[in-house]
């Protein structure tokens, strides 16, 4: 009998070795069933899911919360649970603030033996929650915040990230642009800090892969004719030479009007046109279609998005670590999860594992239009001395993260 971190009888995991049978019908020798609960934390009024700035009154961004993605992975873990005698389940907390989430999570640790918590939070809230839980046996898994700061100066040893960093997403796109020879980039930047972060990540990627940002031009969402230099796409894209237009538009309200409106006939990339993403429903290789269908069976009105994928992958990482470490004890599972022994199916070809220097999951990034995946990064042209996935995002020598 293996004991949980807090002395709770967890499970008879000898079954992992294949000595203990299971079937759908009750089996006399079925292993004793223990439980392993995961947590899920989100903010009730997360601004990322608000119907903001709907310029035309119609919201075009995909506002679904990624909770359903985690539920698909829990369902997938059913068979693992039957064999290992560990029944996986999840508690969800929707709170008003990071403080309230920290309290709820702390209670989970004591009352429910919950140690792995999926966090669907904006960067600031995630940072606060991680700080609030620093002395507790809890691992947060970031499933939706791309901010590079969370993997850099603001990194925390009790946080891992299955959602790709902005640096990974930008590098993925930049690999493609450079491979195509589209080296001269015109940037159209929106007014929000999120848009500024996108541009900062793009600048970094341009330096890394030797592309040039020829100019960065701001845009505004307004009909005011006095601002036409910042609202008229034809004017904004006129008067200089460039190979490709990069749009940094977190609102999604501007970017969708840029393709076919540019002064020069050039492709549009960034948050519109060709978009780097953790997941696209149109990805049809590496068993993606089966995952997509499992998702749609439990979440009919919506298709799977990047954060859904990250939530699915987070639960899969924990259940895999439980199965391979043959334990539900926090330290054992955490150590396995963060070790190079983890070989996680990303459903995008390359197996994933967490980077030791910032706990970011290595995983391919898809470059997707509205209904097709055009390429999968890393592109084969880009090599790395240890793992090609580390051509995406912040590599060990450049990390600002100190745990």
């Amino acid at each position, binding site marked *: 009998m293996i004991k949980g971190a807090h002395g709770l009888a967890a499970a008879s995991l000898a*079954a*992992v*070795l*294949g*000595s*203990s*049978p*299971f*079937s*759908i*019908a009750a089996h006399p020798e079925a292993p004793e069933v223990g439980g392993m609960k995961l947590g899920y934390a989100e903010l009730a009024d997360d601004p990322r899911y608000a119907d903001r700035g709907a310029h035309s009154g119609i919201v075009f961004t995909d506002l679904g919360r990624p909770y359903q993605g985690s539920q698909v992975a829990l*369902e*997938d*873990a*059913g*068979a*693992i649970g039957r*064999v290992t005698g560990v029944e996986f389940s999840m508690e969800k907390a929707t709170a008003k603030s990071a403080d309230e989430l920290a309290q709820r999570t702390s209670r989970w640790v004591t009352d429910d033996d919950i140690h792995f918590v999926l966090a669907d939070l904006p960067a600031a809230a995630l940072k606060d929650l991680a700080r609030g839980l620093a002395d507790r046996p809890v691992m947060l898994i970031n499933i939706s915040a791309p901010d590079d700061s969370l993997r850099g100066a603001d990194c925390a040893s009790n946080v891992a990230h299955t959602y790709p960093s902005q640096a990974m997403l930008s590098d993925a796109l930049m690999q493609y642009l450079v491979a195509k020879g589209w080296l001269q980039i015109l940037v159209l930047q929106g007014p929000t800090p999120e848009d500024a972060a996108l541009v900062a990540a793009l600048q970094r990627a341009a330096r890394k892969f030797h592309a040039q940002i020829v100019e960065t031009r701001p845009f505004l969402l307004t009909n005011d004719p006095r601002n036409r230099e910042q609202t008229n796409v034809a004017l904004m894209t006129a008067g200089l030479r460039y190979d490709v237009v990069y749009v940094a538009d977190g609102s999604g309200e501007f970017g969708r009007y840029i393709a076919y409106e540019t002064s020069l006939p050039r492709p549009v990339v960034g948050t519109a046109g060709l978009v780097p993403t953790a997941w696209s429903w149109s990805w049809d290789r590496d*068993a993606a279609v*089966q995952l997509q*269908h*499992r998702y749609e069976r439990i979440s009919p009105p919506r298709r799977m998005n990047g954060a859904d994928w990250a939530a699915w992958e987070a639960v899969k990482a924990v259940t*895999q670590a439980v*199965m391979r470490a043959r334990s539900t004890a926090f330290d054992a599972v955490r150590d396995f999860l963060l070790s190079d022994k983890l*070989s*996680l*199916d990303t459903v995008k*070809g*390359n*197996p994933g594992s967490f980077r030791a220097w910032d706990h970011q999951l290595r995983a391919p990034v898809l470059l997707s239009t509205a209904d097709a995946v055009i390429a999968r990064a890393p592109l084969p042209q880009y090599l790395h001395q240890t*793992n*090609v*996935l580390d051509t995406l995002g912040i590599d060990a020598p450049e990390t600002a993260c100190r745990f």
Partner: protein
Amino acid sequence: MVLGLVLSTQAGAKGTGYVFVSHEKTNNIAVIDPKQEYKVIQWIPTSHRPRDMKFGDDRRLLYVACGDDDVIDVIDVATLRIADHIPTGSSPEMFELSRDEKTLYVSNEEGSLVQEISIADKLIMREIATGAEPEGLVISSDGKTLYVTSEVTDMVHVVDAEAGVVTDNIVVGTRPRRLLLLPDGKQLWVSNELSGQVSVIDRGTNRVLTTLDFLPPGFRQADVTPVGMTLTKDGKSAIVALGRANHVAFVDTATRKIEAYVLVGSRAWGVAFSPDEKTLYVANGLSDDLSIVDTESRKAVRAVPVGRVPHSVLVDD
């Protein structure tokens, strides 16, 4: 319908050496005659997304699992035409015939179960629950035990074929795909696509005895994604197709030594020997061609263009 086929007297199709290649995206099977300079002598249109293929009735019938139409097509080998369809559950991928050929065991990757289908009645007799995305199946020579891989839960289910229940589960590498029973009756090999290994299972104890790691020159562990496997008739030599590493490995089954890596096309999956075993055919899913490998020199000597996303290869030997 099946009965009618049995009555067809044409036995001339037997032992033709024809190579059948199924294509996931062009929904057809190429029939290639090696004696005619590897000419595609026939394209057999099938239901959507044909994948695994098996001969039945002394090679008079060819069964083909067609994932997007939820059927197994039955092809009359003499006429090379579709003769019948057997409905299955959602998205059949790999399947196995019972020893008496009365029953099909089909893995439904969408339904997380193996279906037992009566061929004569075209009825699903039983469903056996598995982990998510069941794939490879193999049945023991006595017909009593069925082994099934589950890609998502990283295990091989051991199924009592008579009782229709899972009796044991063996945790193997990441994303187990295909199974190979060695003729000694003692070993079961499992290809693990994402961990890039083959697990060797002792059938007596249902434990993993050892793991074979593959690494062709110039590749990294992450590129090695083994899927398809086959054996020589004497069981001495196994072939493991290494997927994105674009190679096949020749393995001595007694010593478990990797004797050679042969460069083939892009994402090699399906593999099969010619009747004299002098030639190995390899289906390359991402280069849409079939590699012809000379097994003596262990070199790919030719690449034959086929349809889009070739999946499985079967030889009429």
